[in-house]
């Protein structure tokens, strides 16, 4: 265990990469989730169909497969497309970008389901009341839909976030120098793989415990007006 302490800076910088990756993917997945949910609830069947294909596709394919496809194949496709249309020059897809896009894409589909369910849980009459008061759609979203949507979405959002943190470990397989990659390299070089992997597990447990505290605080905040049994 002494050698783990010796390599603490390597582990900490890896943890920083993991956290950055998780936060960036979370942002992307929330955006995709909001777009996906509004597409699924749209009156027009075309966005509904597209969002349906999106969620089915993601449910069918493991995240690591998407990540590798994007990392090894995406580079070529993006640059062929850029050369054909002339819209952009050479683009490099590094491990971080491939990780953010694939994890964000996968969890965007789960977020879509989360937000869709949360919006459906808001009584239709409240939206109608907003319209009859002359509120604009944006104002209805800000004052009526959003505060209640967050409350309904939080439990499932928490699950998605915990899943997302764990999914970040996979980026080490395509070679991003994240927590897992740094730890397994260090573990091999000092011949103590168990100690280093165990340290990684503990760090992941600390990350999830911290997010648990934060999300509980949010949960209390958005449930202030609700009488719980």
């Amino acid at each position, binding site marked *: 265990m002494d050698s783990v302490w010796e390599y603490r800076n390597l582990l900490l910088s890896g943890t920083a990469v993991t956290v950055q990756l998780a936060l960036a993917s979370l942002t992307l997945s929330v955006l995709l989730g909001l777009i996906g949910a509004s597409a699924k609830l749209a009156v027009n069947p075309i966005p509904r169909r597209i969002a349906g294909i999106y969620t089915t596709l993601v449910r*069918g*394919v493991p995240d690591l497969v998407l990540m*590798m496809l994007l990392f*090894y*194949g995406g580079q070529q496709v993006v640059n062929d497309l850029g050369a054909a249309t002339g819209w952009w020059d050479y683009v490099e897809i590094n491990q971080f970008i491939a990780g953010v896009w694939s994890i964000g894409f996968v969890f965007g589909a789960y977020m879509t389901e989360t937000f869709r369910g949360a919006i459906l849980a808001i009584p239709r009459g409240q939206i109608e009341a907003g319209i009859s008061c002359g509120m604009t759609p944006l104002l209805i979203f800000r004052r009526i839909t959003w505060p209640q949507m967050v409350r309904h979405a939080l439990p499932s959002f928490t699950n998605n976030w915990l899943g997302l943190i764990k999914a970040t*470990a*996979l980026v080490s397989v395509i070679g991003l120098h994240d927590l897992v990659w740094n730890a397994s390299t260090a573990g091999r070089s000092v011949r103590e793989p168990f100690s280093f*992997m165990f340290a990684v*597990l503990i760090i992941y447990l600390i990350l999830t415990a911290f997010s648990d505290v934060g999300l509980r605080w949010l949960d209390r905040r958005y449930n202030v007006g609700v009488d719980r049994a």
Partner: protein
Amino acid sequence: MAMAEQERTFFEYLVYISENHSPLDFMLVADHIDKFFFGALLTLEITILSLLIGGVMAVPLAIARAYRTPWFNGPIWGFTYFFRGTPLLVQTYLVYYGLAQFDVVRESFLWGPILSNAWWCALITFSLNTAGYTTEFLRGAIENTPKGEIEAARACGMSQARMIWRIVLPSAFRRALPAYSNEVIFMLHSSVVLSTITLQDILGVGRWLNGRYYLAYEGFVTAMVFYMVLVFFISTGFRLWEKRWLGHLRPRDTADA
């Protein structure tokens, strides 16, 4: 020469299209499709075995958790918290690469046949992992047993054990079925970890193909299709199963009446 050009067989024509014009060299994939089927066998083998072992472990653990059995509840909670709070990839690394650190393990009789073998390490880790998840949602299902069912069982004079066996478990299994179908698909998705510890599962074969012919995406696209087909079969199977076992819970179809 022109005649020879004409006399190409249909097969040669396909190979030509595939190599020169198609964005995806499908004939190359077709040549190695048997490898992908063997990969699918390994993926299914590990997934199904670990689900079986994990499921069998989860039942007593969930009962102990649901009834807050003293001495057991705390450690079981720790077990599920640990396995649910950390990535399966790291758990697998810990067992497969990590255990070699200890001389005791390397000198034990288990080392040769089991603990130095990637297949066994994956099976052990995956089983414990799915046991952790299954325990928690099964506990939820047991705790949500309708009070009336338990009161009825008590009124009939059933002992605690008989009540659990005859009333609580059958009804909890049914309520847990939708969550379980998610767990099965989740396990199938997680099984890609196999390819990181040298095993040739579906993704492993895809990576091998890409590495061997220096391709960008053929192997991954094929792997993707294989996974999608498997998930399709699993979710269709569960939908039929749910229809059979949860029929009494569905809202009644008032249209026919």
